[in-house]
């Protein structure tokens, strides 16, 4: 019980330290508004305000983008934080503290995510209603499924970041890797639904983890089907567990290496 309280406190600290930066929050919200605005204009220019493509209307595409961007923007700083701790060697001092480094990072990350989600959610909803009105064909009973998929997407994103962050036990330049992974998740589901991509790319993407961050929840929100829910959510769970396990593995290997080299 005491142990749990310790980490809950870390979550709370993560939340508080983010809440202080009001200006950052406002800037983030404005950025969110900007990109959605540009995409809305772009879709309207393409469709001349009516018509649809691959089953998406302007309204749905804008809501798709809002949902996907919300997952992407509601991420933690775990990559940067891991990277800095390990590269600077500070991690050596954290290891003998009475908490698990990994759980600490996880708790802090969840705190950050909670804040960002709490701020991005109302902003996203507001912008959506202002720009294109309520989502066409919204299926209220599907919302719990969307929430589950969103949570899984966020978790998957977190563990992928943590995993890449910890590769800095071995390599100096993992930011390039981080970048590429980030761009892949943008390309395979953030800017465009997978349905827009050429068939071959779409089929490959469905095997890779990247689309299960943003595409899955946004797709389920804008055009829900039980079939897709049952095919995507298990894969989301699978990939989340896989990257969590990989993170744990790479962490224990990394710490062992650290001990050998003496930090």
């Amino acid at each position, binding site marked *: 019980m005491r142990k749990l309280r310790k980490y809950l406190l870390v979550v709370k600290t993560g939340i508080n330290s983010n*809440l*202080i930066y*009001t*200006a950052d929050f*406002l800037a983030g919200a404005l950025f969110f508004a900007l990109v959605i605005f540009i995409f809305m204009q772009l879709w309207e220019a393409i469709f001349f305000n009516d018509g649809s493509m691959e089953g998406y209307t302007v309204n749905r595409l804008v809501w798709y983008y809002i949902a996907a961007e919300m997952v992407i923007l509601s991420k933690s700083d775990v990559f940067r934080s891991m990277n800095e701790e390990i590269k600077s060697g500070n991690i050596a001092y954290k290891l003998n503290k009475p908490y698990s480094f990994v759980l600490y990072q996880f708790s802090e990350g969840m705190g950050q995510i909670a804040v960002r989600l709490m701020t991005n959610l109302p902003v996203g909803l507001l912008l959506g209603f202002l720009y294109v009105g309520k989502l066409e064909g919204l299926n209220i009973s599907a919302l719990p499924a969307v929430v589950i998929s969103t949570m899984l997407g966020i978790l998957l994103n977190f563990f992928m970041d943590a995993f890449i962050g910890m590769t800095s036990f071995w390599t100096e330049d993992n930011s390039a890797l981080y970048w590429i992974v980030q761009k892949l998740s943008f390309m395979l589901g953030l800017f465009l639904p997978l349905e827009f991509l050429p068939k071959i790319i779409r089929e490959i993407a469905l095997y890779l983890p990247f689309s299960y961050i943003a595409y899955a929840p946004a797709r389920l929100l804008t055009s829900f089907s039980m079939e897709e829910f049952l095919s995507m959510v298990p894969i989301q769970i699978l990939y989340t567990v896989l990257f969590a396990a990989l993170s744990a593995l790479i962490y224990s290997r990394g710490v062992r290496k650290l001990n050998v080299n003496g930090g």
Partner: protein
Amino acid sequence: MTTLRDGEAGNNTVIVARDLRKVFRTKIKKEGFTQSVKSLVKPEYREIEAVHGISLEVPRGELIAFLGPNGAGKSTTIKMLTGILNATSGSMLVLGLDPGKQRKSLSFRIGSVFGQKSQLWFHLPPMDSFRLLGAIYEMDSKLLDKRIDEIVELFEIGELMDIPVRKLSLGQRMRCEFAASILHKPEIIFLDEPTIGLDVLVKQKIRELITRLNKEEKTTIFLTSHDIGDVEHLCSRAVIINHGKIVMDSSVKALKYGYLKKKVIDVKFAAISNHTMLEGLNILKRKGLSMKLEVDEGDGIQEVMLRLMQAGSIVDVTISDIPMEKIIGDIYTDKGLEGINSNTHTDSYAGTDMDTDRYTDTDTGTGSTTAGNSGGEGE
């Protein structure tokens, strides 16, 4: 430019400041979301007077220490004198220029080493930084080469010139840092904490360089430091400020000898047989059979020693000056001012006899610096 220099040659004052003031306006930060939104829209300010009313004159070639506790206004004053900050009111002339209005012209003629802020490029050898600085100070390339040779010899950094700065030790880096700051042959050099974080040997080396710079290039040195050793070993004059005001301006010697009227006696007894003998003595600290006493100079010492010897059998005794650290600390806390002020601005102490036992072990090896600086006194 040259006429200005010639014109000043006969004139001995390089820094004049009159009633300098600096008021900062800082935003008040508040916690909590609503509060911080409020302060975004309508910020509240608080005014802080960092420097209020500093007047100062520094003659050419002087080694002056500018001291004070953290937040006393030292850096702010230096920043005003170098043209980084505009003064709120008051006036100043540095090398005959107004730093606020003629920053650029002034910067050709002053140099600075500001704490940990580096002028050197971290990933490149010092030589590259020197070349760049040469261009910044508009030095003719032949002149620059000559000057670099000169400095390399003076600072003994020849073998460091082609090694990237990141691979140098802190001491080596500081030497190069110094070298970089005098490349353009400044007439005044401002040193803000030049020996911070350095080990004893490097500290000595840096002090030696400062002294040499002062002697060989007649550079005026304006130094702030928390290391009292720097002041003791380098400077002829000390200006102490606190709460933005000068609380004391005197020669370092006067500072020392003013306090030398008092001595500290550390004594250790094997046994104390006569406790009454100890009554009435000014005991600062006592622990079992060891104690520390403060006594007045002159007859006081003899009397106290006699009483101590009668009090019991002594195993060990040391008589020492009050350390400079304590003197300055006392001034910071306003304790020691009366004791000293009566003695400042008189040269009576400069000429007092120099008993060898006055120079306790902390002073060894610095005879040359104190001797070299006596010319800077006499206001």
